[in-house]
């Protein structure tokens, strides 16, 4: 019988009640209300039926059993109070819901189960209800109702009331359901709905036939249609004519249960203009897993597209500038050097062939021409190598810097075997750098050290590294001519020289090149010097380019940024 009741079929309680007709009415009303408070109503009906039975309890023991089992089978808490508001009957669920043992509830005022702040008004409300005609209604329609647990915590409830006239007076039954979970689910649903509504993206639901069933404010903003205008219409109104096939393919994929992820395309707005969007569409299934439609998120990527175009344009410009520079370098290399070769060459030939016809002064002047042409050739070469540093792309790989220093110094030593220079190279210092560029930088730095120790007795060149504040700092130190720190900044400027060409020859490009190479790696380079006391060049090669946002390890001084 209970199973039958759970299935909510109208039943007659044959023999269970002294007035069968009344019971039948209760169950019929239950059926009418099924669309609403089904469960609550069901048990209000049960209680009502039970009470009617209860009236005959004393006369019929088997009815007592039937009633009790009906009451206990109810999933809702049932509390029945008399006219004075005292609890006269509860079920197990009521004990559990409110946390009181049955003994504590029986005879207690029903206000015990109500939060303190509602208690004062409750007896009046209860009396109003008891005298009215209608047998049953949901309590406090439209109000938030709360129960109070013995431990003091409150919980949201739904209550259905039943009013019963018995031989012992008017009883009021209440079937109470804890709706905490449903409230939480509702809240979650409202929150999600609010999120969908407030999203800047268009969030659209559609059937698998492409009929729009949901349309948020983002969609309105992006496409220009209000939800009133678009609901029930086909998404094809949003598709530019030449992309109609695209949408049918999307719908076909969705119908196969496939997802479409960040598909960049073009859609049409209400005003006919086109808009770049990124689409993400997923099939939507019902609880049984059957496909019932699709959700689609369209993000306005006009800004991104514009940025992409701008970037591509800037890249084009940069590339064409780079090509121009390349062409320029090429022509510098070829065209400027050729006349120099002529000047130098013919002066030299003149010098060689007519040596005996020239006096010492004449030979000296011709020598000047030869030397100057040679020097200009060197300057052009240096400029070209400086340009090359900017042009080539960085190819980072682990490079043994100690080895680079050793090789560079070995080359310098073999070119001037008569010189004695003490070398000290800390082994195995490496960094993640472009090998070719870094070699150029080290060639320049070592050549610098080599050159400026040329007049030093007991010349010494050292290469070492030390960690400072989590950063590995490389140093190339010499005990040569040094420089005045007042000019430290000029050191790295192209063509700036702190020594006369007579003292120490050079192009003034070497250190500028080295600096440019270190900078291209995101590193720093600086110099310390004392006149006639040597120079030290410090530089860093960070593991990551600092242009990629904040450097890792900031704020955690313990982390070392070793370059290995």
């Amino acid at each position, binding site marked *: 019988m209970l199973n039958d009741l759970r299935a909510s079929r109208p039943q007659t309680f044959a023999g269970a009640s002294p007035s069968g007709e009344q019971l039948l009415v209760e169950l019929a009303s239950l059926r009418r209300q099924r669309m609403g408070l089904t469960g609550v109503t069901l048990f209000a009906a049960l209680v009502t039926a039970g009470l009617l039975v209860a009236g005959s309890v004393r006369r019929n023991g088997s009815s007592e059993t039937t009633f009790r089992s009906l009451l206990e089978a109810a999933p809702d808490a049932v509390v029945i109070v008399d006219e004075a508001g005292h609890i006269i009957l509860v079920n197990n669920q009521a004990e559990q819901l409110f946390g009181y043992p049955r003994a504590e509830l029986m005879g207690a005022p029903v206000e015990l189960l109500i939060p303190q702040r509602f208690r004062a008004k409750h007896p009046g409300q209860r009396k109003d209800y008891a005298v009215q005609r209608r047998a049953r209604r949901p309590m406090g329609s439209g109000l938030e109702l709360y129960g109070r647990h013995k431990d003091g915590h409150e919980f949201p409830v739904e209550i259905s009331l039943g009013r019963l006239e018995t031989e012992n007076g008017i009883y009021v039954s209440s079937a109470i359901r804890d709706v905490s979970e449903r409230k939480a689910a509702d809240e979650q649903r409202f929150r999600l709905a609010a999120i969908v509504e407030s999203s800047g993206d268009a969030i659209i639901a559609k059937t698998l036939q492409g009929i729009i069933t949901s349309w948020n404010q983002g969609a309105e903003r992006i496409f220009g249609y209000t939800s009133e205008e678009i609901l029930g219409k086909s998404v094809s109104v949003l598709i530019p004519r030449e992309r109609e096939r695209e949408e049918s393919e999307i719908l076909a994929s969705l119908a196969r249960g496939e997802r479409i992820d960040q598909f960049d395309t073009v859609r049409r707005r209400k005003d006919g203009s086109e808009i770049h969007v990124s689409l993400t569409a997923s099939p939507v299934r019902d609880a049984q897993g059957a496909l019932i439609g699709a959700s689609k998120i369209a993000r306005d990527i006009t800004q991104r597209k514009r940025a992409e175009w701008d970037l591509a344009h800037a890249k084009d410009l940069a590339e064409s500038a780079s090509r121009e520079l390349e062409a320029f370098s090429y022509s510098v*290399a070829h065209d400027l050097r*050729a006349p120099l*070769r002529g000047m*130098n*060459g013919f002066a030299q*030939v003149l010098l060689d062939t007519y040596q005996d016809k020239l006096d010492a002064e004449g030979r000296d002047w011709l020598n000047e021409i030869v030397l100057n042409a040679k020097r200009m050739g060197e300057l052009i*070469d240096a400029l070209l190598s400086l340009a090359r540093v900017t042009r080539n792309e960085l190819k980072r790989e682990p490079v043994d810097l100690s080895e680079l220093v050793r090789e560079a110094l070995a080359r310098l030593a073999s070119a001037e075997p008569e010189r004695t220079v003490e070398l000290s190279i800390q082994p195995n210092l490496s960094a993640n750098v472009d090998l070719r560029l870094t070699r150029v930088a080290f060639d320049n730095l070592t050549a610098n050290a080599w050159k400026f120790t040329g007049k030093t007795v007991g010349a010494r060149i050292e290469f070492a590294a030390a960690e400072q504040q989590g950063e590995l700092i490389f140093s190339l130190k010499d005990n040569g001519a040094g420089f005045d720190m007042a000019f430290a900044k000029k050191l790295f400027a192209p063509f700036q020289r702190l020594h006369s060409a007579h003292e120490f020859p050079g192009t003034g490009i070497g250190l500028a090149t080295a600096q440019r190479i270190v900078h291209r790696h995101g590193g720093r380079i600086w110099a310390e010097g004392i006149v006639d006391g040597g120079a030290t060049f410090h530089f860093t090669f960070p593991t990551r380019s600092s242009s990629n946002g904040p450097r890792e390890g900031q704020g955690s001084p313990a982390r070392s940024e070793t370059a290995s």
Partner: protein
Amino acid sequence: MNKTILLVEDNSSDEKLTLLAFKSCGIAHDSFVVRDGAAALDYLFATGAYAHREPASLPTVVLLDLKLPKVDGLEVLRQIRADQRTKLLPVVVLTSSREEEDVVRSYSFGANAYLRKPVEFAAFAQAARALGLFWLQWNEIPPAGAVS
């Protein structure tokens, strides 16, 4: 067979200096000079202005500048390598450029050597002498008419 050097050079100063350098080692009279790429091809294939030439008589070595009027050096090199008659002809690229791309392209087009003209005449003369001596005196050239 007469041993000659074909010098393809459009800069008259460079031409004179190269010849002066050859003269200093006694090989100047073995040189023939053309001033653009088209002339170089006509000379080698005995066409155009050089139609009267005996096509089988090839120079021992071609010294080829890259930047040339009409037909540039790399194109000259490509056509030399594409033709059965000149496929094995030694070609030395002699140019101002030290651009890596030029070096790589010259070798990949089949150059036998790549020499950058130094600004300094002393060095240039030394290189030209070494070049002339190597190709005219030391190097064994492929037998006439040989194809591989």
